[in-house]
């Protein structure tokens, strides 16, 4: 592929990729049409191969494997234990295993119908497609880059996570060192007792290192970037408590169903918004200059819009009941709604529209 000289290579804003992934996941969760779902997985694979974040190992593959395992397990369970949906097209019959009385409604073996296999396949494919979208988001923008955008109230917690991310590989290196030195002294390097022996020197070193880090953080005026008055904190606490209470009330209304609609979803949404706002109110940061800022340019907006188009089309389709969005389990190819296919093709556009990621060293900082 040739690309114009003027397009600078840069990493896209991580929030754009995650919003795109969540949009595509929303689209996948609204349909059980295997054609559309495989198309979603295809879109994920194409975009990741074109624009994966080079600073991390590609996590899409484990997510795809997990999805495949889910599909295979569901089919196996359906063959052996059957599922609630009977069918007229019996493929083959397994011998029945007699079970004792207490096992309730479980049956092992019996006739296997094509319809029930299709039901299991469609349903588990949907879960696999949603997982593929999340894996794609993980691969396109490493979630640790999102740590920068935590609200100021979570500044401390975010810093602790960054410290953890930095020290975890060193911890493993320490463990290897201790093991090899023990092996040199003639200890057998296997067994639980040996693992336990490793833990003490390794953690001891980790504490040494991190308390040294704490001392240097304090001497450099750590945490002065935060402005938070007792009044702010009290307001945030009050909002958080009210928000969680609202969420609880909303859940009660939703789950009970007899309370009425006004107490359900609206109250839940208001409570969640209050709780989210409490994260913003509690503290604020001093503005400061930043190294290597993530910019939000036209390509980010387009990326989010492409994800939103896919989500919108399938939500509308499932509400309006387009033919083929939720196909029946009949032994025939399901109808494929053309608008949904077009929307998913649009969702693949970021593979071309976005700037190519440049290899940068993963800067781990939560400065803001």
């Amino acid at each position, binding site marked *: 592929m040739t690309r114009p000289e003027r397009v600078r290579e840069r990493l896209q804003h991580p929030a754009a990729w995650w919003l795109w992934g969540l949009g595509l996941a929303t689209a996948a969760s609204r349909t059980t049409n295997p054609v559309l779902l495989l198309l979603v997985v295809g879109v994920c694979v194409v975009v990741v191969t074109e624009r994966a974040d080079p600073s991390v190992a590609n996590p899409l593959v484990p997510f795809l494997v997990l999805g495949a395992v889910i599909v295979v397990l569901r089919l196996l369970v359906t063959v052996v234990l059957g599922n609630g949906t009977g069918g007229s097209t019996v493929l083959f019959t397994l011998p029945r295993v007699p079970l004792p009385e207490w096992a309730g409604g479980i049956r092992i073996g019996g006739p296997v119908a094509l319809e029930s296999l299709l039901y299991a396949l469609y349903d588990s494919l949907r879960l696999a497609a949603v997982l593929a979208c999340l894996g794609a988001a993980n691969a396109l923008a490493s979630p640790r880059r999102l740590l920068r955008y935590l609200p100021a109230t979570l500044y401390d917690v975010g810093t602790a996570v960054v410290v953890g991310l930095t020290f975890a590989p060193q911890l493993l290196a320490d463990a290897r060192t201790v093991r090899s030195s023990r092996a040199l002294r003639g200890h057998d390097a296997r067994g639980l007792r040996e693992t336990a022996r490793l833990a003490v020197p390794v*953690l001891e070193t980790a504490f040494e290192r991190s308390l040294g880090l704490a001392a240097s953080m304090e001497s450099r005026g750590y945490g002065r970037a935060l402005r938070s008055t007792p009044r702010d904190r009290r307001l945030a606490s009050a909002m958080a408590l009210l928000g969680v209470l609202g969420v609880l009330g909303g859940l009660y209304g939703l789950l009970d169903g007899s309370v009425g609609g006004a107490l359900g979803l609206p109250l839940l949404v208001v409570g969640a918004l209050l709780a989210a706002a409490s994260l913003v109110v509690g503290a604020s940061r001093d503005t400061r200059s930043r190294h290597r800022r993530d910019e939000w340019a036209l390509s980010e907006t387009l990326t989010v819009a492409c994800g939103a188009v896919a989500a919108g089309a399938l939500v509308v389709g499932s509400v309006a009941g387009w033919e083929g969005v939720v196909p029946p389990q009949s032994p025939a190819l399901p109808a494929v709604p053309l608008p949904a296919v077009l929307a998913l093709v649009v969702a693949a556009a970021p593979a071309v529209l976005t700037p190519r990621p440049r290899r940068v060293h993963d800067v781990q900082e939560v400065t803001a």
Partner: protein
Amino acid sequence: MSADTGARATVTTAAPTSPVRTVRPRVIGLSWPAVAALALVGLVGAVAFAWPFLASADFVRAHGNDAPWLFAVLLGLLTLVCLAEVSSGRLDAKTIAVLGVAAAAGGAMRLLSAGTAGLEPMFFVVVVAGRVLGPGVGLVSGALAVTTGALLTGGVGPWLPFQMLCAGAIGLGAGLLPVRPAARAERWVLAAYALLTGLLYGAVMNLWFWPFLGAGTAPGLAFVPGAPLTENLSHYGLFYLATSLGWDLPRGVLNAVLVVVAGPALLRVFRRAARRAAFGAPVTFESRADAVDRDVPDVPDVPDVRDAGPRP
């Protein structure tokens, strides 16, 4: 902020009277709004896990497919609110360093055991941290250990909020165990706790994806919308026995054995780190004139790190 040049800070710590200090430092004190928020979020978490047993049939018809995703988003938000309330901008650098070690240990364990799902000895560090540094630290370090593991292996998915809540609860519970620090029974109490939580963690974590199997899996194991509570409970029990107990039992046993074997030494490591960080030591400012004629020790009196514990 410029330092006040006319004053000098001294940290005064009581010299340890015995080799093992039995005073538990309050590293993250829980204020009453934080406790209230924790209790309420715990309730929401209980609903998020147990909704298949509570929901009416028409709720499942209307939202059955979306409910697990809704609860994942909701719990993610509320867990962040909880962490913000518990930390509330009061963590000093030393606390962050200790939390960072717990998070690093969780992340490293996840890197090691990426292939063996279920055999996660991560909890054993979280249990020890909660035990030594109190329920607040246990909660935060549990949540952060799971998060760090997920960020390192790129496994950020809908299961993460549920895992954060469970791991945080395990650390919190370890901090509240009614056993005297450095007592002879401590090792066994912690081991029993690790075994129990290892089993419970699996039983509870399976609940989040059980509804995904929907009404369309094997009769007798599947979630039946609107069925009486006892029927769904027995179905879930059978499902758990069939799918998950084989993974959870080894995890619980492994954690318990690790606590029995390495627990006392690890507790010593954590207690020594807490003592050296001098949490809760009063910081007093005095003018330079007073400081000249009084011999104030600058460094807290701590035993040398290298004189205890097995040598590597």
